[in-house]
């Protein structure tokens, strides 16, 4: 950016954006069915998760398969914190005293969940962000598996493989939309700043980035930690949306869903992450309805459970073959100064 943009204009646009979001969240439940509102809530949660996943995976090029591990930690940490004392006594009788005594509200427990994930991301990322390519993918997959094993075995805290239940159903549309707005604003702010330029420099050519004096590890680690924060937040939103869940909900299948959203939309663009979420969510809703069987009058299509996932897999392969950088590539749709416009001149990567 050559000169800072005028504050009033940015402030106005920000206020307008907030007003618009508020209007939409107020209007939507009046216009569409409850079912669709729930679909939109899940889409917002997934968008938080995919956008934050794109931060490390897309912008710094460190392809992590462990994002859902942080989502799981976020869901469980916030769930334990926000469970009422009564529910704790009923479901988690062996919880240590200092945890059994406290019950936090939705917002504080979500924030704590995010911060716990940041701390965890620091511990995990400090060694793992040294790796690159497929090795970081395999190692972070190892992290996901370790999280799963620990959740299943830490019975005192998580009820093990059994359903963790009693989490208050707090995730309403305004919460989901609000957090999505925060996540997008923060991530957009970061990736289209000098810090974000470092991310992309490290992604495009690690050695060249080092040669001009960039320390690769802190750059990657900061992206990983910020991504983990929103993964924890998204996990909390998801946990408070579902009310009851088990470790199996946050494992390979969910990882694949989020990754396909990210890759189909375009890993190197924040808009791409959002587009991917919408595209995959809409496609899976439609496919899932088809999957239950179809009565076409003349003949009926029998229910084919699993068919929607097969189609999703094929779509992902086709994207990899014909449009490997996803729908959006590295382009962004801009919404005024709230989401930073595409950078001009030397900021754009030089294609070799």
């Amino acid at each position: 950016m050559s000169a800072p943009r005028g504050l009033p204009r940015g402030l106005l646009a920000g206020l307008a954006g907030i007003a618009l979001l508020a209007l939409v969240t107020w209007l939507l439940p009046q216009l569409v069915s409850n079912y669709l509102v729930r679909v939109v809530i899940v889409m917002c949660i997934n968008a938080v998760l995919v956008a934050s996943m794109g931060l490390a995976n897309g912008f710094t090029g460190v392809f992590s398969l462990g994002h859902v591990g942080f989502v799981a930690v976020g869901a469980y940490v916030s769930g334990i914190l926000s469970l009422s004392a009564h529910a704790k006594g009923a479901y988690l009788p062996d919880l240590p005293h200092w945890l059994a005594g406290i019950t936090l509200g939705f917002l504080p427990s979500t924030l704590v969940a995010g911060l716990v994930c940041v701390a965890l991301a620091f511990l995990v990322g400090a060694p793992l962000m040294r790796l690159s390519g497929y090795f970081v993918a395999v190692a972070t997959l190892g992290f996901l598996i370790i999280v799963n094993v620990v959740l299943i075995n830490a019975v005192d805290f998580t009820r093990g493989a059994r359903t963790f239940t009693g989490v208050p159903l707090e995730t309403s549309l305004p919460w989901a939309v609000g957090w999505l707005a925060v996540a997008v604003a923060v991530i957009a702010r970061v990736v289209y700043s000098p810090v974000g330029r470092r991310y992309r420099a490290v992604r495009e050519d690690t050695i060249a980035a080092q040669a001009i004096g960039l320390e690769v590890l802190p750059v990657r680690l900061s992206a990983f930690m910020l991504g983990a924060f929103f993964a924890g937040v998204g996990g909390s939103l998801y946990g408070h949306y579902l009310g009851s869940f088990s470790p199996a909900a946050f494992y390979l299948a969910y990882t694949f869903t989020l990754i396909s959203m990210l890759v189909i939309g375009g890993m190197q663009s924040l808009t791409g992450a959002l587009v991917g979420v919408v595209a995959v969510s809409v496609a899976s809703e439609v496919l899932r309805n088809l999957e239950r069987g179809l009565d076409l009058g003349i003949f009926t299509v029998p229910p084919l459970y699993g068919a929607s996932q097969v189609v999703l897999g094929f779509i992902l392969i086709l994207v990899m073959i014909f449009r490997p950088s996803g729908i959006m590539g590295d382009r962004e749709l801009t919404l005024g100064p709230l989401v930073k416009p595409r950078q001009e001149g030397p900021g754009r990567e030089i294609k070799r």
Partner: protein
Amino acid sequence: MNPGLYIAQQVINAISLGSLYALVAIGLSMVFGILRMTNFAHGDMMMVGAFGTLLLGFAGLPFWLAALGGIAIGALAGVIVERVAYRPVRGAPDVSLLLTSLAVTYILENLGILIFSSSPRNFPLPDWMNVALQFYDGQLTFTQINVVTVVATAVSLGFLGWFVTRTNAGIGMRAAAEDLQAAQLVGLDVDRLIVVAFAIASAFAGLAGVLWAAQSGIVEPHMGFTPLLKAFVAAIIGGFGSIAGALIGGFVLGALEIFIVAFLPSAVSPYRDAIVFALLIAFLLFRPNGLLNRSQEIKL
């Protein structure tokens, strides 16, 4: 209980489990060696092989013939996947290859659910394979399946050893693993070599699938994923891309898993998989080229 016999029993178990890991890891490493690709769909060839065997068994074939057929179906599936999904993205960044193979896994497992439903099915075995052999008043026990596992693994490894050292295709494969472009420059038909590599790798996975199903008694669409993840660990312990390394890594991992459960306090055993994957991470960080230390730059 005689401690010597207890240890001997655990060693037998370790060899049996290690054989399976080695069979899967070798295929994984072979493909990685040539294409630098982490093939997540490799484990699903286990599922394809086991279901193929199951179906051919239903069709009335004797078990050994059905098993051979199942292995052949597994090999065929591997070749088809390579041709349809992997060849078009060959040469793309690592992550594209990885994602494509993840998508293939997803498709194959859900096709498995679509066709066979997600509930596990019994894997029928001939009676003689379930016979338990007991020594020292039952202190040393193994079944015929364990014997078959070890023998089948040994025979396949012998075949592989012969193939990669004595045949043109095998030597070509090693050349391609050394340097794909150079192999192409000296006139090797790399496409064909890759097909051969996928066929052998998938046949090994199919065999592992049949043996795995025989040992556990069940077949289900997700059966290949956990062994695949373990095979990753085994391959990386041995040095990813090296066939000998994968073999060693498989047995080391098998022994480790058995010994964690057998010799450590019982409170530790539920965390077995966590320990194994922590070991994977440790290897990636401190010994990324594996025990054999074949050079390859993967760290910053």
